[in-house]
C-alpha cells in the first residue's frame, strides 16, 4: 500500500514519538514527519538504554558475564545465556587441550529451556502486536500463558525473568525431580490455548486487514538490510540457524521452519506484517514439538555432575581454565533472530573485546525504509511486527 503524500502548501508536521511511548516497546524514539496522516519520513533515535554491556564484558571473567547476557535480551534470557556460552565454548575449543565436553543431559536441558523461552518470547511478541492493533484481550491471554513458563523456570533455576542458568560447560544445576510431567502438561496447555488465541485474533477482520500488505519487505530487501529470524523468514527466506548451522543437539531434533507465504489471503503479500505475525505463531507450535523431543531424549540424571551422559555440567575446572588466544564469532538463533558473539581473547581469563550482533538492531534500521507512505497509525504495526527489544538494540 503506497499513498502519495499530497499537501496543498507542502508543509510537513514533525512528530516526536517516544522515548516514553506505550507502543515503542521500550525506550525507542522515532522522529516522524507527516503530511496529514501520511508519513513521509521516520528516523529512529536509539541509545536511551545503552548500558555499555560490551564494555563491562572487558572487566569480567567468561563465566561472570553470563548474568549480563540475561540483560542483553531479557525477554528470552535463556537463549541469550546459551548464545554466550556456546560462543565461549567455541573459543575454548580452538585449542584441543582446552575443549569442554558438555554432558548429554546438559545439552538436552539447554534445548529444552531455550525452546521454552522461545515460546514465552514469541508470546510477548504476538500479544503485544495484538495490543498495538487495539485488541487488549489477546495480550492478557498471552501474558497468562507466559506465567506457566515462568513457573517452570522458577522451579528449574529460581528466577522468573533473568535466569543465569546456562553456564559454560553445561547448566547451573540439574532439573528438579519430577519436573518432566509438569513441562509436558504445560506444553499441552500451550498448544491448546494457542489454538484459542488463534481463533480469537488471527481471523479477526480488523486485525487482518490492518496487517495485510502493511510494511511489506521483499526477500531481497530483507537479506540486503540484514534482517534475521522471524522477520527474515516472514519475507519468504527459508533460513534458520538451528537447522542450517546447528549448534548443540539441534541436529538431532526434527522441526519445520515456517516461512512467510502471503497468509493474509487476497490482500496479503509475502513479507507483510501479517506474515511475520503468523511465522511467530507457527514457531511457537514448532518449539513445543522440539521441547517434547528433548523431553523424550533426556538421559536419566547421574549422581555426579561431571558425568558426560547424565551430568549437568562438565568438570568445573575445565570451564575455569584460561581460554586459548584467538578470536571467534559464533552465531545462534534467538527468538529475535541470529545473534552473534564476537570474542577476542588474549589468552587471559578476561576477554579482550566482546561484540554482540543482535537481530533487533537491524530491525530498527529498516524502519526508515518501511515508514514512508504508510499511515501514521501503521508505524505502530511496523514496530510491533518487527518485535524489537530495545536493550538488544542499545546493549
Amino acid at each position, binding site marked *: 500500500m503506497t499513498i502519495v503524500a499530497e499537501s496543498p502548501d507542502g508543509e510537513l508536521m514533525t512528530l516526536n514519538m517516544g*522515548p*516514553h*511511548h*506505550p507502543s515503542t516497546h*521500550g*525506550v525507542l524514539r522515532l522522529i516522524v514527519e507527516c503530511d496529514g496522516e501520511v508519513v513521509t519520513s521516520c528516523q529512529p533515535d536509539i*541509545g*536511551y*538504554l*545503552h*548500558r*555499555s554491556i560490551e*564494555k*563491562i564484558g572487558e*572487566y*569480567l571473567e567468561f563465566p561472570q558475564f553470563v*548474568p*549480563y547476557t*540475561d*540483560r542483553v535480551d*531479557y*525477554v528470552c534470557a535463556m537463549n541469550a545465556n546459551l548464545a554466550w556460552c556456546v560462543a565461549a565454548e567455541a573459543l575454548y575449543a580452538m585449542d584441543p587441550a582446552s575443549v569442554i565436553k558438555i554432558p548429554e543431559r546438559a545439552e538436552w536441558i539447554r534445548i529444552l529451556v531455550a525452546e521454552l523461552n522461545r515460546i514465552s518470547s514469541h508470546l*510477548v511478541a504476538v500479544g503485544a502486536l495484538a495490543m498495538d492493533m487495539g485488541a487488549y484481550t489477546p495480550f*492478557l491471554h498471552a*501474558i*497468562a500463558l*507466559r*506465567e506457566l513458563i*515462568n513457573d517452570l523456570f522458577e522451579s528449574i533455576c529460581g528466577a*522468573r*525473568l*533473568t535466569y543465569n542458568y546456562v553456564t559454560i560447560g553445561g547448566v547451573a544445576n540439574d532439573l528438579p525431580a519430577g519436573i518432566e510431567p509438569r513441562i509436558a502438561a504445560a506444553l499441552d496447555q500451550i498448544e491448546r490455548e494457542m489454538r484459542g488465541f488463534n481463533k480469537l485474533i488471527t481471523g479477526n477482520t480488523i486485525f487482518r486487514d490492518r496487517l495485510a500488505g502493511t510494511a511489506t519487505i521483499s526477500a531481497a530487501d530483507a537479506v540486503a538490510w540484514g534482517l534475521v529470524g522471524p522477520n527474515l523468514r516472514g519475507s519468504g527466506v527459508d533460513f534458520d540457524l538451528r537447522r542450517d548451522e546447528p549448534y548443540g543437539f539441534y541436529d538431532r531434533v526434527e522441526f519445520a521452519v515456517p516461512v512467510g507465504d502471503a497468509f493474509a489471503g487476497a490482500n496479503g503479500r509475502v513479507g507483510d506484517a501479517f506474515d511475520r505475525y503468523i511465522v511467530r505463531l507457527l514457531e511457537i507450535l514448532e518449539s513445543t514439538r522440539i521441547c517434547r523431543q528433548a523431553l523424550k531424549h533426556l538421559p536419566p540424571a547421574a549422581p555426579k555432575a561431571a558425568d558426560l551422559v547424565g551430568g549437568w555440567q562438565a568438570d568445573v575446572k575445565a570451564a575455569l581454565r584460561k581460554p586459548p588466544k584467538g578470536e571467534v564469532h559464533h552465531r545462534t538463533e534467538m527468538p529475535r533472530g541470529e545473534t552473534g558473539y564476537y570474542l577476542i581473547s588474549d589468552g587471559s581469563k578476561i576477554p579482550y573485546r566482546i561484540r554482540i550482533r543482535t537481530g533487533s538492531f537491524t530491525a530498527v534500521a529498516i524502519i526508515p525504509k518501511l515508514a514512508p507512505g504508510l499511515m501514521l497509525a501503521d508505524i505502530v504495526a511496523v514496530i510491533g511486527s518487527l518485535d524489537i527489544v*530495545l*536493550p538488544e538494540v542499545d546493549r
Partner: protein
Amino acid sequence: MVDPVPSGSICPVRTGGGLTVGSRPGDCELHLTAVEDFLNWGKEHSLFYLLFATACCGIELMQTGGPRYDVDRLGMIPRASPRQADLLIVAGTITHKMASRAKRLWEQMAEPRWVVSMGSCANAGGPFSKFSYSVLNGIDKHFPVDIYVPGCPPRPEALIDGVIELRERVRRWQTLGVRPRDAAVIA
C-alpha cells in the same frame, strides 16, 4: 428506594470517630469524616500508574498488570500519559541519556504524585553501577522516591508489597497545611 449500603463503611472514619445515623438494616448510613481523610481514601484506592518501562523490570511490571497478579483489584490502572497518572513506577535501568526524559515525565505529573523505584537499577544502578559509564546510579538523584523495591528484577509480589506500603503513605497524605516529607521506605 434507597440502595442498601453494606454496613461497615464506604468512607473511613479515622479522626475522632464518626457519627452513624440510621440503625435499621438497609438504612443508608451516614458517616462523618474529615475532608482530608475522604480525599485520601479516594487517592489510596485509585493509584493510576504511568506505564513507564525502560528495561527488564518492565516485563515484570507487565506481568504484574496481567491476569495472575492483577493490580487492577487495587485500583491500579495503567495510564499512557503522565498527566493522568498518580504513581510513577520507575521500572528499569535509567541511563544518563534517559534521565532527563524521566525527570520530565515526573514534572508533567499532577500533584499529588508518588514514585516507586522498581528494581536495583532504578534504586542504585544495580549490576551496572560499578563498571558502566552510561548508567545513572539511582533515579533518586533526579527526583524524590517514596518506595524502593529491591530485586533484579523484583517479583510481582515484591512490587505489590511496595505499593501496599505506599498506600499507607497515601492515607496519611496532607492535602491542606504544611506537608512533612516522609523518609523513604525500603519495602
